[in-house]
């Protein structure tokens, strides 16, 4: 449990716009570590560069400076922000997509996909096309797809951001259940303090642009968690206050 899975040192990323000759620093000297099997949330205001950090971890974007060390056998799997479900494939084909790219035999693929459809509650929708599904169902497909080839590290980029609160609560509970059975290392990005505290072992708080980590808070609740019951715990609200205070103290609107 104490083994390090991800180590990020001095990570800096900037964007340059040639038309206006402007340089924007998206993330500045970001540093953190994630232990194997740990669930870490990065919380911060929109535009603070948290998605950029995650995309760099996923290898979808290049870094400008610093180092990242991903100690895993395989590249990380990503659950994306918006509807990333491929509209021309059925639910089953979407979930099996990473396996089909690797040329896994149809029979093996079918067995593995069935397992994940079961795990994510999609069995009844296996042959539906995504445009028939609700937003919550589509995100279940994204989660199932990210789990299908069983990679060690799971990166989640505000996967439940576009969902209504009830659906989000249900999916958070299911994600916790899945995480507890699979023991994956998870880095989860969110702008919701509530969501971060509900899910994480540790919450990293990011400042507004240029984003950097300003706090590393341990979330003390026992596992397995009940996403509804934990709201009766006074510590939940103390931590909520703590994170909000940190976010407010760095808010640019406050100094303006």
């Amino acid at each position: 449990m104490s083994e390090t899975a991800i180590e990020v040192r001095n990570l800096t990323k900037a964007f340059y716009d040639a038309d206006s000759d402007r340089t924007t620093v998206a993330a500045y000297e970001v540093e953190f570590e994630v232990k194997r099997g740990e669930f870490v949330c990065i919380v911060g205001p929109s535009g603070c560069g948290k998605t950029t950090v995650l995309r760099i971890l996923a290898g979808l974007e290049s870094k400008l400076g610093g180092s990242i060390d991903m100690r895993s056998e395989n590249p990380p799997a990503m659950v994306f922000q918006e509807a990333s479900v491929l509209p021309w494939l059925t639910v089953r084909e979407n979930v099996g997509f990473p396996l089909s790219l690797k040329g896994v035999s149809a029979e093996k693929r079918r067995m593995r996909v069935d397992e994940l459809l079961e795990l994510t509650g999609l069995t009844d929708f296996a042959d539906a096309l995504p445009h028939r599904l609700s937003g919550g169902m589509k995100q279940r497909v994204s989660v199932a797809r990210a789990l299908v080839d069983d990679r060690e590290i799971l990166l989640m980029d505000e996967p439940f951001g576009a969902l209504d609160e009830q659906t989000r609560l249900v999916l958070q509970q299911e994600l916790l259940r899945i995480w507890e059975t699979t023991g994956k290392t998870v880095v989860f990005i969110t702008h919701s303090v509530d969501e971060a505290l509900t899910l994480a072992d540790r919450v990293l708080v990011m400042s507004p642009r240029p984003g950097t980590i300003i706090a590393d808070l341990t979330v003390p609740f026992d596992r397995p968690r009940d996403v509804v019951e934990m709201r009766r715990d006074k510590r939940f609200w103390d931590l909520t206050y703590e994170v909000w205070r940190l976010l407010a103290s760095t808010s640019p609107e406050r100094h303006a």
Partner: protein
Amino acid sequence: MSLITAKLTEEQIRQLKAPAQRERLFRTISYFSPILLLLLWEIASQLNVIDRRFFPPPSAIAGTAWQMIASFEIFDHIGATLRRVSVGYVMGAVPGILLGLILGLSQPARRVLGPIFAALYPVPKIAILPLILLIFGVGDASKFVVIAIGVFFLLLYNTMGGVMQTPQIYLDVAKNAGATRFQTFFRIALPSALPNIFTGLRLAAGSSYIIIAAAEFLGARSGVGFFIWASWQTFAVSRMFVGIVVISALGYLTILALEALERRFVPWAKH
């Protein structure tokens, strides 16, 4: 019937199904709406509102058409035209789609090859027909080539546009799932561009018949275009109209067939 619908009254269910039934009705009507035009024409011609020498009534044209059908004369021409159009169409569409995919996905390819196609595209296809006749002779090869050229550009530009509109997130998904460049090409870019490709296929079908008619006027001994031209030379106006109707009907049916294919292969897009 499931439990949820069991609680609805007959009236409510009727109301519920009405939009779908209306949609079916309109689809059926849409197949027949061109017939309305013919009806107006017939009446105008019979009443001498329009000159019968130039616009014989559709019933007279139908009579001529029937003779030609009975003598199988018309089928030779239809066969020749269809063969030229379909071979030329495939010859143009396949490279058009492939190059469209490449240019859509690769900015360097777009930078280098884009200007060449942009310069060639505006050349009227009919204007280069004499040149093509010179190179490929008066046989079918020249017809294949001139149609292929017309079809190629429409598919190139529509496919390229479709690929460039591929949401970045689909490409990210592919990359994260470990797709090779080749897989990204055929499993992401191609399906994502399919609605645009079908738009290109429909436009190209229309142009194909325009081009083949002109090509058969000039250098052919068979085909519907040749038949129209030959009828003009003998002032057989009714036969001319048969030719015009036939070639229009061919184009119309081709587009209907493509729309059916699109509903089958692009079920996720709105129609």
